[in-house]
């Protein structure tokens, strides 16, 4: 019988189904979890959502820096038509096997060479520390490698077109793209993540790229933001500017910043430089959010699965008053130097100008050249270190008054141990008032050497804040230098000579100060001996309204001086400006009639070597009004060549600033003593917290 053969056919088919079913058991049951996770991994895409960086505002609420929306052009590696050709050599430079990873990456060098139209060669080099598998163990290994990729013509053509549209150099775009690619290879970034290659391209270029998707395959417009400084150069050194993170910074901050993973840096992120942008990076920097979406095979988002909202950065309110700042910058125009204006009672920085300046909107590409001899990026108020010249006599006088060793009269014969004085007709008996007024060198030589001694002078110099940073919220503040015998021994292995004391007495020799330090010293003299902390950041207001006041409650060192002694010093400084024979008398002539109040000041003219040339620095420091001091200021003007007196070069600048000083800084609430007002203000802020 052959009927059974029919059943054999059925058995064959059954066998087929059993074969497939066993496979299904493997795929769906044994490996089910793997494939479920894998599918989720493919379907879900987590993208970062951006928030804007905090604004920087002036004390009167004027916005000095803000984020404005900008169109960026990004390249998506996985969407490029020739991505394999381009990406594979780079991605394969260092193969990672299972469990292996990159610990840190140094020296990513991307060199783009243009070899004629539409021909580019990208040399890509990298050194990194890997965790490599060796047998069953993971060991660290240092590796480096490089590769040169010829950019395919079709890609180069598109890049050049986009480059022409966006006004960005094509090699720069390629460089940014390949740097991004380096991170893909390390698993720190995904191939389909857009990599920004041209920033702030403008609406026309963006719409051109966006609407011609077929011509610019792999290019995408992503909305980002660009830092804008509405007042251009105003307070540029205080604000700082934005620049892409360096490789080293990225390395340090890629896992997190300011203790927050959401604030971590991506390689195309920009970071603040120089001013508050840098100093308050922790507060200003927004926290990225994430959005997990379900995407289809074409990477179209279908629905939002999970969302963590981004948090905008905190607004930073400065103590800077734009009017005063503008006045200070106008006073400095055309000169090299710095002006600092402080509120004497509180240490609030009303203006901090440094010249020459720059426009932070142009940074970094169109900013000043790094080899500019005048160093426009240098904030001379905190990073310029100059000898103080005669203005240091204020510190000597202050120290002597504190130590109670000021004689009634000192005779000036015109020279002292070979050190000269030609500030007045000789010989002359002077008291402290007149010595300050005329800036008599010999008086202060004798005072410093015979009465005070270097030990006590150095002690009070340090107490007045010289030789150490003021702690203002700016990066890279210099400490200056207050020479002491111990320092000299350490530095030069030499004894401290008499000449060193005499030099220091008139602010020459080794002494180096920053304008901010000087302004603070003057503020201390003005307010009766409280060495206030200069405050640049008034408060930070976070997105949810929380207010923080930095440096609040820091004890203010008090160097209190009896009223009558202080009055002597004040009188001397007043005489500098308003008495015949005062070193700045000419610059302030007619001031009292014009403004109705008087100014206390002190000139200084210091010999210095600046940029390798014999130069001098003209100083004018002081406070106003003379009776009830409110603002303290320091003006330093660098001057090359022949000697120019501080009273001639710096004092008129100070006058220009004070001329434009708003009324409110000269007058408190009517009838309220200044100090009480300052205390009340602090209390109010405490309440606001």
């Amino acid at each position: 019988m052959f009927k059974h053969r029919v059943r054999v056919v059925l058995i064959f088919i059954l066998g087929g189904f059993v074969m497939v079913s066993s496979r299904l058991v493997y795929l769906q049951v044994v490996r089910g979890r793997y494939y479920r996770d894998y599918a989720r991994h493919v379907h879900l895409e987590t993208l970062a959502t951006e928030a804007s960086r905090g604004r920087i505002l002036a004390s009167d609420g004027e916005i000095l820096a803000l984020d404005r929306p900008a169109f960026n052009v990004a390249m998506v590696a996985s969407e490029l038509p020739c991505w394999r050709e381009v990406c594979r050599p780079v991605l394969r430079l260092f193969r990672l096997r299972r469990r292996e990873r990159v610990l840190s990456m140094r020296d990513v060098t991307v060199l783009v060479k243009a070899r004629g139209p539409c021909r580019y060669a990208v040399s890509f080099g990298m050194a990194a520390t890997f965790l490599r598998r060796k047998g069953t163990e993971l060991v660290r290994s240092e590796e480096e490698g490089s590769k040169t990729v010829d950019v395919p013509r079709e890609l180069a053509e598109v890049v050049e077109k986009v480059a022409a549209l966006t006004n960005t150099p094509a090699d720069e775009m390629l460089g940014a793209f390949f740097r991004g690619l380096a991170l893909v290879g390390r698993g720190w970034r995904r191939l389909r993540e857009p990599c920004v290659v041209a920033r702030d391209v403008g609406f026309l270029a963006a719409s051109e790229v966006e609407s011609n998707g077929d011509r610019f395959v792999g290019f995408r417009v992503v909305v980002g933001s660009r830092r804008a400084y509405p007042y251009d150069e105003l307070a540029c050194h205080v604000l700082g500017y934005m620049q892409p993170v360096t490789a080293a910074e990225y390395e340090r901050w890629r896992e997190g910043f300011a203790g927050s993973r959401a604030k971590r840096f991506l390689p195309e992120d920009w970071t603040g430089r120089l001013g508050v942008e840098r100093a308050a990076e922790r507060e200003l920097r927004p926290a990225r959010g994430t959005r997990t979406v379900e995407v289809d095979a074409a990477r179209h988002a279908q629905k939002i699965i999970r969302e963590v909202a981004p948090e905008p950065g905190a607004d930073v309110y400065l103590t800077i008053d734009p009017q005063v700042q503008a006045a200070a910058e106008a006073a400095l125009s055309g000169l090299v130097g710095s002006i600092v204006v402080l509120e004497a009672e509180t240490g609030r920085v009303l203006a901090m100008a440094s010249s020459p300046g720059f426009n932070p909107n142009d940074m970094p590409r169109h900013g000043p050249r790094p080899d500019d001899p005048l160093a426009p990026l240098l904030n001379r108020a905190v990073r310029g270190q100059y000898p103080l010249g005669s203005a240091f006599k204020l510190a000597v006088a202050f120290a002597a008054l504190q130590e109670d060793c000021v004689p009634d009269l000192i005779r000036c014969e015109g020279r002292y141990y070979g050190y000269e004085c030609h500030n007045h007709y000789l010989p002359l008996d002077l008291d402290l008032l007149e010595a300050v007024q005329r800036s008599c060198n010999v008086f202060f030589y004798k005072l410093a050497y015979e009465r005070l001694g270097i030990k006590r002078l150095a002690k009070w110099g340090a107490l007045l804040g010289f030789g150490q940073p003021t702690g203002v919220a700016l990066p890279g503040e210099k400490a200056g230098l207050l020479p002491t015998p111990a320092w000299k021994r350490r530095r030069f292995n030499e004894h401290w000579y008499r000449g060193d004391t005499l030099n220091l007495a008139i602010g020459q020799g080794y002494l180096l100060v920053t304008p901010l330090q000087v302004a603070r010293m003057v503020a201390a003299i003005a307010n009766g001996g409280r060495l206030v902390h200069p405050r640049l950041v008034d408060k930070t207001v976070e997105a949810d309204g929380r207010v923080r006041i930095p440096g609040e409650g820091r004890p203010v060192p008090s160097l209190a001086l009896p009223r009558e002694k202080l009055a002597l010093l004040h009188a001397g400084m007043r005489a500098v400006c308003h008495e015949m024979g005062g070193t700045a008398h000419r610059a302030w002539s007619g001031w009292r009639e014009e403004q109705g109040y008087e100014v206390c000041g002190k000139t200084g003219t210091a010999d210095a070597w600046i940029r390798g040339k014999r130069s001098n620095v003209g100083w004018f420091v002081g406070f106003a009004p003379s009776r009830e001091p409110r603002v303290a200021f320091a003006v330093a003007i660098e001057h090359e060549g022949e000697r120019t007196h501080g009273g001639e070069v710096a004092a008129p600048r100070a006058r220009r600033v004070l001329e434009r000083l708003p009324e409110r800084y000269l007058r408190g609430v009517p009838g309220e003593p200044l100090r009480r007002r300052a205390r009340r203000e602090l209390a109010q802020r405490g309440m606001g917290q």
Partner: protein
Amino acid sequence: MMRRPRLTQRDWLIVALTAALLAIGAAFVRSASYRSGPMGEGYYTTSPLKQLQWAAIGVVLFAGVLFVNYRHLIEHGYALYAVGLGALVLVLFLGVRSPAIQARRWFAFGSMRVQPSEFMKLVMIVTLARYLTHRESHRRFLGLLPPFAIVLVPMALVAIEPDLGTALVLLPVVFAMLYAAAARAGHLWLIVVMGLACLPVAWVGMRPYQKERVLSFLYQEDPRRQYDSYQLRQAKIAIGSGGLFGKGWEKGTHQRLNYIPAKTRNNDFIFAVICEELGFFGACLVFALYLALFASCLRTAEEVHHPGGRLIAVGVVTMVGTEAVVNAAMATGQLPVVGLSLPLISYGGSSLLSSLLGLALVVNVSIYRGVALAADELDPEAAARRASAPLPEESFMHE
């Protein structure tokens, strides 16, 4: 013995199982015809509607076939064969090209496209049944040549369309029919071995995309080649992520998010969709339905005394069964990707019609098993001659 044609209980079972598979097919063609778009704005294509149209046509033809005694068809087997060959030759010249793969497989009638190779399979079964019915030459090894020749000519024509899948499915059919027609198993094994020995020759003649498919099948777990077998990889993810119970109908994320390419999702890879949405148990249910269908059909084949009817039933079951197994094996990565649809379920008019017509033939065989041809009544002599001709199984009973 004469009796009136009637539908037995088992015929109704066949019809019910067929209808069940058709319903599953319609449901999953619907699910697989979703196209996701940007911003979550997906839509359904019209393919479920078209499929329903084809199914309606299929049902009408199914019923129509039941009115014609299958023996008439067998009588005219050679004529049908000639017509089928003619169609296959014509389609090489007049057929429409599919833009995706450079193949001429279809005749276009308005918006409907008909694939003659699908129907040729049925014609082949009928022709082979005609050839093998009153003959015992195929018991000899050389006697196997004519039936293979009958198969190889249309196979070659289909293969140069090219449509390797459909062509290859003919081979199990002819083997099964020869086996059921009492050919010697040893001879058939010998041919299988010889065929395997010729595989390298076949490799040379394959087109690049066919070679790629075979290679990607062979290297499917090799990460270096994973880009080359994208479809297969996605199908496996879809199947695996379905797990035991599946994600639910119209909830299969992997397929609905277009990861399985839209072109093949509702035909070649619809099995992956079913596995994703119904899970392992759902796939087993489909298999069970198929097996029940095949078992009832083969039961009919066992009971039919007329050898032609039995061969038709065996041929149809082998055809449908092979397609089902090969399609499922292909989606799970056990066989290279060949363009075969899952019978009765996949989207595609010609394939649906040919499966339905095939099953209709089986039902036809069942209901006409005792009914003689009118021609036999007119020509009793010929009928007696045919009746006296020994059925193979009887003549070789002594073995």
